[in-house]
């Protein structure tokens, strides 16, 4: 039997906030000891203090987490500058946390090693992996490749840690440690049911242009001209903005995926995007309206509920793109409202706004690094 407890505090005082969160969890757990936890925290907190307090309250807990661009939970719904903690207890489900440090030195190998370490401590068959990796120091796509190499077809869910749109430094949590440039993973094994849904809401608009020169995730030329010109044309000469990702149509395909810009080179006129792009793809700039975004989140949630294999899930975990929050502006809470209304019952849940979501593609089952999507993961005991 899986038992899930949740705490959420919007108190900007780190000690007060963590105390409140722990207290909320304890009242749900009664005297049960949690095995593992997920912690999503705003960037301004004293994260060391928070982790220490949690560890004192629940010694030996397997905890991972990271900093965010906004937090959501079934307790306080959407918040900024808040702290949310989800704790798990179960006797027939195993949770094992582990960490890959200095991941930018060799993203693939270090991510892979992190999974292997956690795997050695499992006795039951693995069901899924949750991760909150760094996204500013290295390519999340490479980290994902390492995770996939160690996990095979086991699905991976998560979101890249964020820093409230400052793009300076994100933090990852592992037990009592606060790290940067790291990839924490939590493996879940045993008698667990789960299902998920992914949806975006961004639509291509404007001219269809051809990628004429690209190397993996660096676009050099679009329509035979420097790639930056393409963004400059649409964004009044300002730098590429991740809020307007490119819709990428691989050659001969009607379906597109999104790639947000993560950097650019003024001299060469190139744009670096969040994942590889096939040569000769057609690209279009995209845009999203509040309604599109809210509708898509509802779709993701409905899809997850429809596919859930068991009676009813015990908890929901959400990963939503920071860019969605950006579009939603003051109406960010509507996204949580939409998913809350689309599910059959009110369910314990928490999540955060990320710099990139990780979830399998619904058609191929291949884990993919998304942008601008909303991911709902439902879990429950078998």
């Amino acid at each position, binding site marked *: 039997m899986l038992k899930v407890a949740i705490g959420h505090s919007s108190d*900007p005082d780190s000690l007060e906030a963590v105390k409140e969160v722990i207290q909320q969890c304890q009242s749900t757990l009664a005297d049960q000891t949690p095995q593992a936890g997920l912690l999503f925290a705003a960037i301004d907190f004293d994260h060391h203090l928070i982790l220490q307090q949690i560890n004192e309250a629940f010694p030996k807990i397997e905890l991972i987490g990271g900093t965010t661009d906004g937090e959501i939970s079934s307790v306080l719904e959407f918040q900024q500058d808040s702290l949310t903690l989800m704790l798990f207890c179960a006797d027939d489900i195993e949770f094992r946390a582990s960490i890959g440090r200095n991941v930018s030195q060799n993203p693939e190998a270090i991510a892979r090693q992190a999974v292997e370490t956690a795997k050695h401590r499992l006795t039951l068959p693995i069901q899924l992996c949750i991760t909150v990796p760094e996204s500013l120091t290295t390519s999340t796509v490479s980290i994902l490749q390492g995770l996939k190499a160690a996990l095979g077809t086991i699905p991976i869910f998560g979101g890249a840690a964020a820093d409230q749109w400052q793009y300076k430094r994100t933090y990852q949590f592992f037990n009592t440690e606060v790290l940067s440039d790291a990839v924490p993973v939590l493996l879940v094994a045993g008698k667990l049911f789960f299902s998920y849904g992914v949806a975006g809401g961004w639509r291509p608009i404007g001219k269809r242009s051809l990628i004429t020169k690209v190397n993996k995730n660096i676009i050099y030329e679009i329509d035979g001209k420097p790639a930056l010109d393409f963004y400059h044309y649409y964004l009044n000469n300002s730098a590429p903005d991740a809020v307007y990702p490119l819709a990428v149509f691989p050659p001969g395909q009607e379906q597109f995926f999104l790639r947000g810009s993560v950097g650019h080179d003024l001299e060469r006129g190139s744009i670096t995007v969040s994942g590889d792009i096939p040569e000769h793809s057609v690209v279009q700039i995209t845009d999203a309206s509040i309604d599109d975004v809210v509708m898509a989140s509802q779709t993701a949630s409905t899809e997850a509920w429809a596919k859930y294999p068991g009676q009813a899930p015990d908890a929901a975990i959400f990963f939503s793109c920071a860019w969605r929050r950006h579009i939603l502006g003051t109406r960010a809470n509507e996204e949580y409202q939409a998913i809350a209304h689309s599910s059959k019952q009110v369910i314990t849940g928490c999540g955060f706004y990320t710099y990139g979501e990780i979830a399998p593609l619904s058609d191929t089952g291949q884990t993919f690094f998304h942008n601008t999507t909303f991911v709902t993961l439902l879990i429950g005991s078998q």
Partner: protein
Amino acid sequence: MSPKFELEIKQLNKEIRILKKKLERSEVDRARLEATNRSKEFLLKRVICDLQEYQSILEKKSSDLEQAFNELTKMKDKLVETEKMAALGSLVAGVAHEISTPVGTSVTLASTLMDETRSLMMTVKTGQLKRSTLNNYLDIAKESTNLILNNLNRAGELVQSFKQVAVDQSSLEQRTFSVKHYLEEVAISLSPQFRKDLHTVTIEGNDAIAIHSYPGALAQVVTNLMTNSLIHGYSQQAKGHLRFDVTKYNDQIVIQYRDDGCGIPTQILEKIFEPFFTTAREKGGSGLGLHITYNLVTQKLQGRIAVQSEVGKGTLFTIELPTSVT
């Protein structure tokens, strides 16, 4: 201080902290939202410009397409015209061939008569003309003038009927005529195009079935159907039987035309009336014959045409025409 107040103050302090933080955050967020709005506005303006550009490109494209379409239509009309001229040409060839027989016979007979006359005149000059010689000459003269007259009459008749078809074919005038007789005339005009020892043509039906319509259009329809049978229906040595049946139901005249040739495979049967569909392009087929036929029957003649065919057995075209066009 009482513990109750202490708790209340603690609570108020927390609320103040939260509100302060929220205020800070909302300043940052507002600035960001304003920036987002500016860039969004710019983006949308650009996209509108793109759309306008596309619209003018599309407009140009569609006018190009229209022009291309008009040119094609003109070309098709020209081809149809050429086809008509070709039909007229084969008619002229037919005329020449058919008339050459009676005229040739007449020439032979006339020259024989001239020879006989010359030798009679010589005999008369020498003063040795016998009664029997004169009688003999008179017999020959009577017989040959008879034959000449017959042959020339036949030629005259032919000219008459060809003239009719030719006139009908070039000008599209309406008149009332016997369907069966008219089919016979057209068939004769086509006879030089096939070997009489190989193919036979029969025309069945009541002579009295008359129609008020455009004979020229009908001639063209029949010409196309018969030439198709001869070109597509039979291999080199095959003997063919082409047959027309003319019947009348209420106000509809039904012409059934069948050949016993190779037939048309099902998968192409529905295409044969399409313009430019041909299986004989290398033999110079344009694929317009049946398209024109279809248009003539359905438009000019205000009727219907249908086809049935079985590979190896032959092909049947059924044409229904109103007894009188409006």
